[in-house]
C-alpha cells in the first residue's frame, strides 16, 4: 500500500492545490513534496535491499486483457524514487523567487509530473510503465509551453512530437511482446516477469531492440536523437529544465536497465557496438559544442548531453562496474545538473542575462554563490571526493572493460568537462569586472536552502558511495544474470 500512497499523494496534492492561490500554492506544494520525501525515506529505511521488489501491489487493472496494476520497489527503483522525491522539493523551493502567473496550476503540474515519474520507476507491468511514461510528458509539455520564454511554442512542440513518436515505437514493441506471451494458449500478460520469460528468437530481438531503444534514446537523449534537447532546456522555465535534466532524463537510462536489456538480451548483443559508438560520439560531440557556447543554459544542456552519453555507454558495457557507475552517476548528475541550472537561473534573475561574455567578476560581491557554484561545478567535472568522480570512475572502468579504445575516447569527457566548465566559471565569476560585479546580491536564505542539501549530497555520494552502491547492487546483479542467460 505504501507504493500506492507514494504514487497517489502528489496527484492528490496537485488537485487540492487548485484551491490555493499564489504564495499559498507554493508553500502547499513545497509541504506536499516534503511529505512525499519523508514517505520515500520511510520506504528506504524499512525495505531490505535485495533483488526482489518490495512493497509489491498487484491488482487487476484491465482484467479482461490480463493487464495488472503491478508496482514494486527494488534497489534500483528505490534510488530513483529517492532522487525524485529529494529533487522535487528543492526544485519547488528554487522557484520561490519567481512570480509565475497562475502559480497554483504551475505547482500542480510539477506534482502531477512527480506522480508520472515515480510511476515510471516503480511499474512492473509493461502497459502501466508506458502509461506513466506518457503521463510524465503531459505536465512538462505544459510547464515548458506556458511558462517558457519566447520561442517556447515551436520548441515544446518539437519536444512533444519527438518524445511521443519515440514512445509509440516502444508501445508497438510492448503490444507485440504482449501477444507473444499468449502464443501457446497461455493467458496473455503484460507483466514484466512474463516479458522476461519470453523465448524470443535472435531475429525478433534484433528489431524489437530498436523499437524499444529509440523511445529511451530520445528521452535521454543519445546522439543523434538529441536535437530537441538543447532548445527545450534553454526555452523552458528553470524548474521545468531542472525536472527535465535532473529526473526525466533518467527515465531513459532506467528504462534501458529495467526493460530493454533483460527483455531483448540477444538484441543487445547484436547492437551494443552501434549503441556504444553512438554514445561515445555523443560524449565528444556534446562536449565540443559545449565549449563553443556563450549561453550558460545552453552550455549546461550540451554538457548534460555529453554526460548522458557516458551513462549510456556504461549501461551498454554490460559490466557490473559500468552499470553501477550509471546508477551512481544518475544520482550524481541529477544533483549536479539541478544545481547548475539553479545557479544559472540565479545569475540570470540578478543580471537579466545568461550570456557568458557579458558577465564577469561576479565573485567580488557574491562569495557564497561562487563557492557553491564551484563545488557543484567540480562535482560535474568529477574531481575526486565529489559525487561525479565515483560515477565517472566506475563508468569509465566499465567502458574500458568493454573496449580499451572506446574507454580511452570516452575518458576525454573529463578533460573536456574541465575545459568548458572551468572556463565558464572563470569568465562568469572571476575574470574582468563587468557592470554587474559590484551591485549583484549574494545568495538569499531560500537559495541557500536549495543549494546546501545539494552540496551535502555532492560530498556524501563522493565520500561514501557504498551506501548507494549497496542498495542497487543486488538488482543490477540480477539484471546482469538475466542478460547472460
Amino acid at each position: 500500500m505504501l507504493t500506492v500512497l507514494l504514487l497517489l499523494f502528489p496527484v492528490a496534492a496537485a488537485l487540492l492545490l487548485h484551491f490555493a492561490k499564489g504564495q499559498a500554492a507554493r508553500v502547499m506544494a513545497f509541504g506536499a513534496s516534503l511529505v512525499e520525501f519523508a514517505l520515500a525515506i520511510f520506504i528506504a529505511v524499512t525495505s531490505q535491499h535485495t533483488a526482489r521488489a518490495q512493497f509489491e501491489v498487484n491488482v487487476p487493472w484491465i482484467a479482461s486483457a490480463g493487464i495488472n496494476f503491478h508496482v514494486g520497489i527494488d534497489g534500483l527503483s528505490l534510488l530513483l524514487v529517492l532522487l525524485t522525491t529529494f529533487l522535487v522539493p528543492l526544485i519547488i523551493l528554487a522557484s520561490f523567487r519567481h512570480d509565475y502567473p497562475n502559480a497554483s496550476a504551475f505547482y500542480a503540474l510539477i506534482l502531477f509530473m512527480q506522480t508520472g515519474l515515480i510511476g515510471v520507476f516503480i511499474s512492473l507491468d509493461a502497459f502501466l510503465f508506458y502509461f506513466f511514461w506518457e503521463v510524465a510528458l503531459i505536465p512538462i509539455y505544459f510547464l515548458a509551453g506556458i511558462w517558457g520564454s519566447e520561442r517556447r511554442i515551436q520548441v515544446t512542440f518539437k519536444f512533444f512530437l519527438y518524445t511521443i513518436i519515440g514512445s509509440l515505437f516502444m508501445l508497438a514493441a510492448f503490444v507485440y511482446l504482449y501477444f507473444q506471451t499468449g502464443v501457446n494458449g497461455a493467458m496473455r500478460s503484460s507483466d514484466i516477469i512474463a516479458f522476461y520469460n519470453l523465448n524470443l528468437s535472435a531475429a525478433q530481438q534484433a528489431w524489437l531492440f530498436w523499437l524499444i531503444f529509440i523511445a529511451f534514446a530520445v528521452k535521454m537523449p543519445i546522439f543523434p536523437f538529441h536535437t530537441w534537447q538543447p532548445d527545450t532546456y534553454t526555452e523552458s522555465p528553470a524548474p521545468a529544465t531542472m525536472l527535465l535534466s535532473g529526473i526525466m532524463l533518467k527515465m531513459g537510462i532506467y528504462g534501458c536497465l529495467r526493460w530493454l536489456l533483460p527483455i531483448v538480451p540477444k538484441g543487445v548483443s547484436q547492437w551494443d557496438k552501434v549503441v556504444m559508438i553512438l554514445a561515445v560520439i555523443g560524449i565528444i560531440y556534446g562536449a565540443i559544442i559545449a565549449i563553443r557556447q556563450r549561453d550558460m543554459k545552453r552550455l549546461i544542456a550540451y554538457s548534460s548531453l555529453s554526460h548522458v552519453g557516458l551513462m549510456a555507454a556504461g549501461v551498454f558495457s554490460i559490466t557490473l562496474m559500468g552499470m553501477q557507475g550509471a546508477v551512481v552517476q544518475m544520482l550524481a548528475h541529477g544533483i549536479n545538473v539541478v544545481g547548475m541550472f539553479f545557479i544559472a537561473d540565479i545569475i540570470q534573475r540578478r543580471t537579466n542575462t545568461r550570456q557568458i561574455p557579458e558577465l564577469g567578476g561576479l565573485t567580488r560581491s557574491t562569495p557564497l554563490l561562487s563557492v557553491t557554484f564551484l563545488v557543484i561545478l567540480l562535482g560535474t567535472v568529477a574531481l575526486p571526493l565529489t559525487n561525479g568522480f565515483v560515477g565517472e570512475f566506475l563508468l569509465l572502468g566499465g567502458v574500458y572493460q568493454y573496449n580499451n579504445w572506446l574507454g580511452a575516447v570516452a575518458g576525454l569527457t573529463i578533460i573536456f568537462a574541465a575545459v568548458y566548465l572551468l572556463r565558464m566559471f572563470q569568465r562568469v565569476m572571476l575574470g574582468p569586472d563587468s557592470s554587474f560585479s559590484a551591485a549583484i546580491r549574494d545568495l538569499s536564505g531560500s537559495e541557500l536552502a536549495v543549494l546546501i542539501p545539494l552540496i551535502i549530497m555532492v560530498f556524501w555520494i563522493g565520500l561514501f558511495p557504498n551506501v548507494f552502491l549497496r542498495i542497487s547492487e543486488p538488482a543490477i546483479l540480477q539484471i546482469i544474470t538475466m542478460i547472460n542467460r
Partner: protein
Amino acid sequence: MTSIILLSVLGIVNLFLGFLRSNRMLLPVAMIILVVVFGANAYDWNSASQSYFNNMLTIDRYSVAFTGIVVLTTVLLLPFSQKYVRDDEANLAEYYSLLLFSLVGAIMMVSYENLLMLFVGIEILSISMYVLAGSDKRNVRSNEAALKYFLMGSFATGILLFGIALVYGATGAFYVSQIGEAVANPANASMQPMLYIGLLMMLIGVGFKVSAAPFHFWTPDVYEGTPTFFAAFMSTVVKAAGFAAFLKLLVQAFPAAQNFWIPTIIAMCVLTLLIGNVGAVAQNSVKRMLAYSSISHAGYLMIGLVAFNGALSGLSANGIFFYSLAYSIATVAAFGVLKLVSDQRQREDYTALNGLARTNPLLAFVMTVAMLSLAGIPLTGGFFGKFFLFGAAIDKGYIGLVVFAVVMSMVGIYYYLRPVIAMYMRPAEADATEPIAVGTFQAVVLVVLALLTVLLGILPGIFTGVL
C-alpha cells in the same frame, strides 16, 4: 424495445409541448426523456436477448451497449443547445423531437436482424439529419449543407438499397443469419458475382454514412454548414450507430465472404486514415479540422472491422464499443466548447481559441482533455480506444496496417495540439479578451465529460470485455 417505444411516444409528446410557446421547458423535458430512455435501456442489460417483429429486431447486449452510447451522447450534448432556448425564432420542440426520432433510427441500426430494418433505421436517422443540417435557415451555408447532405445521402441509400436487393437476389434472404448461411453454402457459388456486387454496394452505402473514404467528400462541407450542435450529433451518434451496424452486418451476414471484403475494407481504411489525417492538418477552421478528424476516426474504427473474429464479442467488437464511447465523449466535449466559443466570438478558426486558458480555464481544460483523447494520449479514453483496436488487429496479424495507423496518429498529434497551443500558449486576440459566458449546467456537463474521458483513461477495465 422499450427504448424505441419510449422515444417514439415521448418524441411526439415533446412535439406537442412546442405549442406551449415556452422554450424554457423543453430542454429539461428532453433531458428527462433521454434519462428515462437510458434507464429503460440499461434495464434490458441483464435480461436475455429478446426478438421483435418476426425476429426483425433483436435486443441483446450488443444493441443495449451501443444504444447506451448513443443515448448517453445525446444527453450530454443537449445542454449545449441552450442558445436555442433563448432564441424565440428557433423551433426548439421540432429540433428535440427530430433528435429523439433519429435516435429511434440509431437504435434500429444497432439491433436489426433483417436488412430492411437496417435500411429503415438508416433512413429514419438520415432524414432527421437532413432537416437538422439545414435548421439554420437564414444561413446560406446551412442550406447548402442540407442540400448537399440530402442529395449525396439519397444516392447512398439508393445504392445501399440496390445492394440489399442484389444480396437478396443472390441468397434469397433478408435476415442476416440466413444470408450468412447462404453465403457459407458452397452450393451457391454460382451466385457469387451478384452477391459480391451487392455486398460492395452495401459497403458503399454504409461507408457513406460513417464518412469513410472515398465516400467522405460531403463531410467537411456539411459539418461546416451544419449548426455546430447538430454537427456534433452527426459525428458521434451517426458514427457509433453506423459502426455497430457495419460490424453486425459483416460478422453475421458475410463472415464466409471475408476474403472478398477484408481487402476492400483495408483499402478503404488506409485511404480514410490518410485523407482524414492529412486533410485535417491543412484546415484553419477548428470545425473543419474536427470534420476531417471525424473521417480519420472512421479509419481507426475500420481497423476494428478488419480485425473481426466472427462474433459480436471479443477483441474487435469490444474495441469498437470502447472506441466509439471514448470518441463520442471526447467529440461532444470538443464540439461543446467550440459551440460556446463560436456563439460568442462568431468565429470557428483557431484564433478564436487564442488565450482561452486565461479567460475560461474550465473550457480550455475540457477542450485539452478532449484533444488529448482524440489524439490518443494516455490518461484519456482515446488512448485505450486505439490500444484495444490496434491490439485486436495485431492479434489477427495485420501489423502493417497498424504501423500505418500509428504513423497516421502521429500526424494526428500535430493538429490536435494546435487548439491546445492556441488556448494555453498564445495571447488572446484584441476582440476576444472577454470571458465566454458558460451556464452552470453546461459547466457541470463539461466537467462530467472531462471526468468520463479521464475515467476511461485510468480505469478502462470497467468498459472492456462487456460484450
